[in-house]
């Protein structure tokens, strides 16, 4: 513990221009668009520009999306990222069945991102951090999924194809981060952009709809920034010019459960 690891990504394209022209072009455009919306709209109700170009070609492995979380900046008592994720993905629309106990429902309701508070057993130092799917490069959840419903998109996002998920929960057994939730109850209320329903497993998908409509951050990142903490950075791990790469270069970061060599796409500094 306490050992820091340099980010090791063997797949980084050496030349940033490797990324397809469409990709880089849109990214540039979206950077502007997102900046504008973020500036004018209240947190969490980010409106998406209709003019954003939806993706028309399949994602490629030229990019790998990831997050960097600076635990030093994550503050006690804040839950902006969690709330934002809930709103973004319609998780706030879940409601407890009348006859279920609150305690049991807390164990059963879907959680994509959670706040964890740690204390170092030796130093007594307390650390706060958000924990979500780590978007492993070698995801155990994908390895075990019998139908291939758990899959890793070419751009590094690990998600569940809920059309083929049979709800066996083997992926949940396999995930070392307890990142996944099973939908225990019929969903009556969902958002058009995030379909979700009973009997399948889900987890953070790095706001995949935002990816495909060309925005360049996630709901949690936006929220943290809006809350003034900027503890989370989102970006392309393969692009040496991206802010996440720059941050990674600047600070020591590590993966949770490094011993499993999963090469996670979500990195933490300060733990």
């Amino acid at each position, binding site marked *: 513990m306490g050992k820091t690891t340099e980010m090791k990504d063997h797949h980084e394209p050496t030349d940033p221009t490797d990324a397809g022209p469409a990709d880089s072009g849109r990214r540039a455009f979206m950077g502007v668009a997102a900046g504008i919306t973020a500036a004018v709209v209240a947190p969490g109700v980010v409106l998406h520009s209709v003019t954003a170009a939806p993706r028309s070609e*399949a994602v490629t492995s030229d990019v790998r999306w990831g997050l960097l979380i600076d635990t030093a900046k994550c503050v006690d008592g804040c839950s902006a990222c969690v709330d934002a994720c809930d709103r973004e993905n319609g998780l706030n629309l879940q409601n407890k069945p009348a006859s279920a106990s609150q305690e049991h429902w807390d164990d059963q309701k879907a959680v994509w991102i959670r706040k964890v508070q740690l204390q170092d057993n030796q130093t007594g130092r307390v650390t706060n951090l958000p924990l979500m799917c780590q978007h492993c490069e070698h995801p155990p959840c994908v390895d075990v999924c019998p139908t291939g419903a758990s899959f890793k998109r070419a*751009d590094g996002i690990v998600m569940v*194809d809920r059309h083929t998920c049979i709800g066996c929960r083997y992926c949940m057994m396999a995930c070392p981060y307890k990142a996944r939730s099973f939908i225990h109850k019929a969903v009556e*209320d969902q958002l*058009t*952009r995030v379909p979700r329903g009973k009997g399948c497993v889900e987890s953070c998908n790095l706001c995949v709809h935002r990816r495909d409509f060309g925005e360049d951050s996630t709901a949690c990142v936006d929220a943290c920034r809006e809350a003034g903490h900027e503890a989370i950075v989102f970006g392309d791990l393969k692009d040496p010019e991206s802010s996440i790469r720059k941050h990674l270069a600047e600070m020591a970061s590590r993966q949770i459960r490094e011993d499993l060599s999963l090469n996670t796409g979500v990195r933490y500094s300060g733990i």
Partner: protein
Amino acid sequence: AQVVLAADAKTYVLEGSKAAALESCVEPTDVMRRKHMELIKHQRDETVHGGIRSSKHSLAGCVECHIRSDADHVPQPIHRKDEFCGACHAFTAVNLNCFDCHASVPKGPGAEQASHAAFQAVGADRSVQARPDGEDH
């Protein structure tokens, strides 16, 4: 044999939906009647695995265009037995589970984005809306 179109069979397009004010679906009606399930299933895989969101066969698009709003402009869940998808599937005894997960009314920000491509393909203005009473016809 001459192909008899199901032209004078009853239509399921409802007054009060955008579709009612439009000429044609994302594919010719004949094709839609026979093959819509394949089209959207294909689209589904493209979207989920490839992230492609710009094609006209999106389910969100179907909902957006075919959803019927009542007189108070409240959209009615499309899979209900008397609505567009629901009525037809009730007639053919097909149990859809799509709407276990998919929103059965356009909901939340970004709903329009998802149907954008479909409208573009048909060349329709997404603002069209047939009045529930069908008077604009």
